[in-house]
């Protein structure tokens, strides 16, 4: 992936239970300092997503790395950025404190 160039990535999620699951996901970027350069244009995260029993779905993320990444001396040794998602089961009545996104 080249900084500034838009890129597509896929995750896959499966609901192995026999009940529908409503989940919501949040993400993490490693190394931590690279997170500020990671820009998501569109993804499956932050909103509740429903997975039916035994359903398996592809979950796309469309993103780009800020070109300023290449100018940051602290990032000079970073050639691998890992994006991970954690999918939480949404509980009724629970409102996650999503920063500025309602």
């Amino acid at each position: 992936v080249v900084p500034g160039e838009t890129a597509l990535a896929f995750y896959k999620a499966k609901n192995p239970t026999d009940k529908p699951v409503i989940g919501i996901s949040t993400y993490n970027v490693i190394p931590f300092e690279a997170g500020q350069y990671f820009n998501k244009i569109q993804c499956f995260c932050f909103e509740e997503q429903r997975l039916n029993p035994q359903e398996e779905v592809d979950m796309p993320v469309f993103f780009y790395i800020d070109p300023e990444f290449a100018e940051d001396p602290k990032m000079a040794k970073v050639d691998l950025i890992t994006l991970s998602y954690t999918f939480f089961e949404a509980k009724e009545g629970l409102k996650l404190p999503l920063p500025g996104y309602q």
Partner: protein
Amino acid sequence: MSTAMNFGSKSFKPRPPDKGAFPLDHFGECSAFKERFMECLRHSGYESGACRPSAKAYLECRMERQLMANEPLEKLGFKDLIDEKSEGEPEK
């Protein structure tokens, strides 16, 4: 398992996506396009740049099926691929 909940000196602030969330493709309407994109990545040694036409096709599939808000492709970083097209290059 590490999460974003570090109550230490630095706090990671997740930011929402610029254009919101993708609805799930429950019926796999665009799975074929996704497969083509993944095939391309495997063949190119996971060079994202080499597979941008397939990525563009996947997003176009989503837009056609209301699985993504319509957005001019130039704004999604595909301007160079569109310019190529208008110069009469056939799309594979």
